């Protein structure tokens, strides 16, 4: 029976989304880092996942891929762009940040490579990956 495994895959996605949401709120509300425009777009993709995925856990909703994947996919796409900008692959002038905090601002840098956009990228990729595995499980049933 695969539904047990599927449930834990979704649970993993939800956990990632929850940790990312609380983490980003900690950065902005507690540590006082002002989110840049691209961070906001990624937040828009991440925050709803917490509620969508939670609702899909009880009872297990096999259709959740259809609702969750667009958020995770768009978030992943924006985070890739943000990282390219962060590491100077895409020039800052091509970014949508006209005012406020430039999207290339580096707030944290743990172990020399973990920045906020990297954390976002890791989280979105893992969610996308787990959702894909979930879909595969469902199909095989």
């Amino acid at each position: 029976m695969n539904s047990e495994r599927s449930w834990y895959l979704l649970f993993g996605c939800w956990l990632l989304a929850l940790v990312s949401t609380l983490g980003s709120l900690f950065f902005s509300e507690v540590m006082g880092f002002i989110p840049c425009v691209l961070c906001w777009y990624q937040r828009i993709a991440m925050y709803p996942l917490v509620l969508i995925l939670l609702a899909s856990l009880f009872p297990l909703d096999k259709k959740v891929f259809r609702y969750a994947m667009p958020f995770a996919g768009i978030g992943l796409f924006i985070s890739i762009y943000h990282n390219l900008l962060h590491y100077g692959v895409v020039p800052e002038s091509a970014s949508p940040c006209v005012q406020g905090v430039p999207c290339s601002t580096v707030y944290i840098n743990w172990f020399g490579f973990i920045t906020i956009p990297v954390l976002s990228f890791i989280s979105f990729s893992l969610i996308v990956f787990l959702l894909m595995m979930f879909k595969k499980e469902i199909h095989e049933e």
Partner: protein
Amino acid sequence: MKNKKNLVLGVALALGAMFIGGAIAYKFMEGKSLNIIADNSPERLVREYSPRTGPTDPKVVLVEFLDPECESCRAFSPFVKDILNKYKDEVQLVVRYATYHRNSAFAVKILEASREQGKFWEVLDLLFKYQPNWGNHRNPKPELIWYYLPEAGVDVEKVRAKFNDPEYDKRVEQDMKDAEFLQIRGTPSFFINGKPLNEFGKQQLLQAIQNEL
């Protein structure tokens, strides 16, 4: 099913508790470490070149990191003036620059050049007064400052001549470095006798000053 619900609930509660606990711990540590920073490196708070006003031997040194292009600094400025008037024998104000906006450094250089004519405070007021015109973030027109400048009684030609003095760039840069060192993330930011004003607000500022008197 029941176990799974407990798992989800437990995880949510644990993470929520971590968030709140972390927030309380962080705020506590932040306040402590800032006090230590300010105590150990007084030069980060007040540089020799920093403009100041008030008594030379003050009871309270109020350091304000400000940005001429910042709306909150503009809104706060009359209140700071009230404090200086009220405690004119006790409080000395030291101005530091936090040039966070696009034309802040431009305005600061004009300010520094005007200072050589003894018109620093007049020009600071002027910059705040016309800020909505020259410092509109959607449509900034910093060159308008030249046009307003005579109103403060400065010799505009002399200001223009001094404007590109590399010393001003150094000051802007040094102030930004100190602001970063002191973990300043917004303007205006205040330090009262070296202690950061942790909770922003007029009443909080007044209270912090009165505590030192």
